[in-house]
């Protein structure tokens, strides 16, 4: 589904990603770990071409994203969901307008179909009451959940989550993790999830990737990673 080949990205002198190669199968949930500033968000943005890699290739569904025409890229992006670390809600629009925005512009749903979809995703993130609020009136965690609702409302086949549970209480966090699993089961969604949240990772991860010093330091099953005899990994996973 997603393949990254020898991807390099730097900002000025700072090399953020070096020779990153990954392969993610259809229907798989892969979790990406790494310390703050290790380039996790940059990696996600390179995959959807929000950032241009210095070198290397990205393939989605076998199609080469890196030098695709904008028109084709947009067709592909309609099938991709992206949850930003900061939620990135449109702050001049209400929650309802935020959710309807991609529906109106990219798909031909009737008004009542849209209404059903909006209500449906809000129920999934348990925020039915926020429908007519402005983003500024929401708490940080609520913004995150509305961001998540906006990401899944178009029913994408591939979803990239940048820290979906950060800033949420343990109960909500668990609900969100279960929602991610549910999407995988019901809609066969492929997911790449950046997270620091071990509980969340244990629930959702089929496989985990650890980034360190701009490289993929480890890649393997979640339960194996936790048991690894490595200083860094031990520090990382023992709370």
């Amino acid at each position, binding site marked *: 589904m997603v393949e990254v080949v020898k991807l390099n990205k730097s900002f000025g002198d700072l090399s953020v990603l070096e020779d990153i190669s990954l392969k993610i199968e259809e229907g798989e949930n892969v979790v990406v770990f790494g310390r703050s500033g290790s380039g996790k968000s940059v990696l996600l943005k390179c995959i959807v071409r929000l950032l241009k890699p210095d070198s290397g290739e990205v393939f989605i569904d076998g199609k080469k994203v890196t030098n695709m025409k904008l028109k084709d890229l947009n067709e592909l992006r309609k099938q991709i969901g992206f949850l930003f670390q900061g939620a990135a809600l449109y702050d001049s629009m209400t929650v309802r307008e935020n959710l309807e925005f991609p529906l109106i*512009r990219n798909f031909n749903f009737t008004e009542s179909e849209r209404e059903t979809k909006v209500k449906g995703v809000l129920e999934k993130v348990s925020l039915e009451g926020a429908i007519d609020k402005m983003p500024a009136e929401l708490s940080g965690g609520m913004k995150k959940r509305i961001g998540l609702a906006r990401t899944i409302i178009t029913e994408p086949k591939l979803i990239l989550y940048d820290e979906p549970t950060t800033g949420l209480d343990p109960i909500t966090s668990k609900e969100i993790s279960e929602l991610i699993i549910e999407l995988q089961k019901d809609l066969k969604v492929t997911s790449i999830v950046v997270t620091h949240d071990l509980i969340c990772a244990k629930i959702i991860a089929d496989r985990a990737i650890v980034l360190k010093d701009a490289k993929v330091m480890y890649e393997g099953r979640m339960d194996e990673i936790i048991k690894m005899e490595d200083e860094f990994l031990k520090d990382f996973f023992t709370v």
Partner: protein
Amino acid sequence: MKIITREEILRTNIGKSLINFFETIADLSVFSIRFFKEAFLPPYELGEVRKHMVELGVKTFPIVSVAGFIIGLVLAMQSQPVLLRFGAESFLPSMVALSVVRELGPVLTALLFAGRVSSGIGAELGSMRVTEQIDAMEVSAINPYKYLVVTRIIACTLIMPILTMYVNFLAIMGSYLAVMLSMNMNFELYINSVVNSLQFSDLFPGVAKTLIFGFIVGAVGSFKGFYAENGTVGVGRASTSAVVLSSLLILLVDTVLVKVTVLLWK
């Protein structure tokens, strides 16, 4: 005699700022040309354009109203004693009308508009940039240039002539207040001499050039905001530098246009 090399000039502060300025102008031109490529393709987002026009109108209405009326009033107050000295007091209405319609109205409105609007657009788009809202549009396959920039530039361009005609009207009213207080001239006579002195060649270029000023304000504000960097600091910078650059460009372009209109309508 010491010859100054090109490199030495480029190393001075003035040299650097000049280069910066021309780089900005080059980037701005590329940014603006994109407008003409995208504005004429669907979807047209007319709803957004209308929303922005109403917003801009409401936002600038109070300041241009006050400024328009007062500039007419003051202009008449200043000119009256001078004209009296030359025994040409009866030319006062024509003089005020011509100055306002040909030059003061359009430029004053444009500068006020720039101060109020291009800073607003710069801040608005700047904060959308740094909070990744523009990226969010892009990944949802929505063209942010089209949705955010094209609509704002069109709104600015269309609303400027309307504002200018309104300012012209108020300035002429303001000037009548001064005339009424100091001279013995009734409203009908005043309006008659204003209308008689104005020709198409005075009105048309004055209003037409405000389309260009409106475009400049929209394009510069959007440009600065769209490429804002460095978090909230960058948003502030986008907003102030948008005002500076758009005001400067309005004055420069105005100079050129005045020359052109004088040549065209001798």
